[in-house]
């Protein structure tokens, strides 16, 4: 057991990370995100139950049934006045948030380190917690991918969501059954990749951006002796001796990855989502496919890195992937 290791004897290191004022928001995130996920899923479940009930009724009967999980009584107006029914909530929320903020600001001081000194490197040198997902990505990809291409793709990928989701169902209510694919994909990206990468960056990365289990003592003198190799190298091609063959091997492997995942995705999507596939045009479909494969490539690269100690798959004279 790693926890029996003297390195883990007390939770001092973990406490040091958790209690760092700048890390309080991520601790709050660790509570709020699961809570709201549960809160949403609970309502999705209620709505899904309602959908099931409606589906067995015939069309005419289904039409007259109350369609919301919220209670409804005869004689109630469909609308209420914003003043006071919405404004009182807004006022209350503003009050509560302000009180929380004041208490938070009295109890915890904003961090202030020594004056900036270009000659004294901070180790570990961590970005603010909300960027640690990107910083963690720097381990697996070169800066041009992790720092520039991936963030741009995340932003662009989010922007195109409404234009690629052709499913007309689930507009304005929580549901899981009617939107399994879109909610699954989004949750995989937001919870499974973005939040998890941030948690790794905050709680697991220590000096030298090395892997320290939560609670493990941050040994500043630790040296990782792991040697990383490149995939073409494992197959007997080195960039030094045969750059062209190395590049070709990389291109074949990467191309193969894209081809196989595309084929698998196509098979899965046409089987599982025939309605969506029929409705999508080729640009919408190709875009969704591209972003799903790009998203998958991150955990794939993580596995290659951690389990097989592979640094690059593709080596070209200009850049590596």
């Amino acid at each position, binding site marked *: 057991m790693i926890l029996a290791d003297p390195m883990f004897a007390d939770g001092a290191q973990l406490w040091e990370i958790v209690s760092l004022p700048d890390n309080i928001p991520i601790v709050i995130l660790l509570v*709020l995100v699961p809570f709201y996920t549960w809160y949403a899923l609970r*309502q999705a479940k209620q709505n899904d139950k309602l959908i099931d009930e409606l589906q067995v009724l015939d069309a005419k009967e289904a039409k007259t049934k109350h*369609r919301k999980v919220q209670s409804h009584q005869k004689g109630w107006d469909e609308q209420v006045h914003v003043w006071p029914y919405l404004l009182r909530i807004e006022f209350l929320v503003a009050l509560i948030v302000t009180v929380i903020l004041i208490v938070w600001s009295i109890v915890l*001081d904003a961090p202030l380190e*020594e004056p900036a000194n270009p000659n004294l490197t*901070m180790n570990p040198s961590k970005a603010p917690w909300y960027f640690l997902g990107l910083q963690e990505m720097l381990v697996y990809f070169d800066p041009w991918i992790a720092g520039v291409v991936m963030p741009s793709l995340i932003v662009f990928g989010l922007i195109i969501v409404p234009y690629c989701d052709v499913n007309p169902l*689930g*507009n304005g209510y929580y549901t899981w059954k009617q939107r399994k694919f879109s909610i699954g994909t989004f949750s995989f990206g937001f919870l499974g990749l973005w939040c998890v990468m941030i948690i790794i960056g905050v709680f697991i990365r220590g000096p030298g951006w090395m892997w320290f289990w939560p609670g493990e003592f941050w040994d500043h003198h630790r040296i990782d002796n792991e040697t990383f190799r490149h995939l073409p190298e494992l197959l007997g091609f080195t960039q030094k001796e045969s750059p062209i063959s190395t590049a070709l091997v990389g291109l074949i492997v990467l191309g193969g990855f894209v081809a196989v995942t595309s084929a698998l995705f196509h098979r899965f999507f046409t089987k599982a989502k025939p309605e969506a596939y029929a409705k999508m045009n080729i640009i919408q479909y190709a875009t969704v496919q591209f972003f799903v494969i790009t998203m998958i490539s991150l955990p794939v690269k993580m596995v290659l890195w951690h389990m097989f100690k592979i640094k690059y798959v593709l080596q070209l004279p200009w850049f590596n992937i």
Partner: protein
Amino acid sequence: MSVTEGPTKTGGKGEKGPPGSLKELVEKSREVPDLLKKPKEKQLWKSVFRHKLDGSPRNRSLAVLTNVFLHLHPARINRDAVKYAFTWGMGGITFLLFVNLTLTGIFLMFYYHPSKGQAFMDILYLTHDVPFGNLLRNMHRWAAHAMVLTVWLHMFRVFLTGSYKKPREFNWVVGIILLVLTLLLSFTGYLLPDDQLGFWAVTVGTNMARATPLLGHEGPFGAELGFTAFNDVRFALLGGSIVDANALLRAYVWHCIAIPVIATVFMIVHFWRIRKDGGISGPAGVVLPREVKGWLPKDKR
């Protein structure tokens, strides 16, 4: 003019003196208690509040419609739309935090010089000497962190309720831009204390810009296109090849003026479009697949 004009008798109480006389002035001043009675029927009150304040439906509507700060709201909304379980209130909280950050930010600006060396001293001054300075700085910091959180949760909620679907597609796009702007605001603010934390975070962050494909001198094809450390995109961000005085000034201007102005413009669009796209998306009644024309595949229709 005759002095006997008017309904007054000579002598006694309530008698008006000749126009312009002291007696008339004293008599006028006796009206003060009457003037203070029923303030709601007086001109001053009516000029500020255009309608009565009782709970009649008409006045409840006017309370919202005649108020510039509230008129982004409709007068009436869907009964279910006030359900906290549906909205989580995250968009509103985000806006509240933005307002809070603007106010605390303005106060902080009174005490801050964006110049190397002085900036750090200003933070020390704020922390230790300025009355409530430490509270002010803490509040600005924690509100900023909280805002990042609430923006994410707002996006999560909007996604899970499918609220980006027709007709709200473009408002989702505006929202993503606001998300990016929020992160940029936070990031530019990080450098301003000019301490080790901010300096290294921004150094690490902007070092990535070096690797921008085509535009960074260490990125793919950057060097081939003639970019060096002194003319690439990182140089443009920092106003130099290292994080120094120019970078501090640039971060300051972006943080305090440029990005807030841009974000405000996008927020105006964001809020406006919520109204124009039919208000909040739900909680709407559920829709069955068979009720959507052309949604089921042909063989199942």
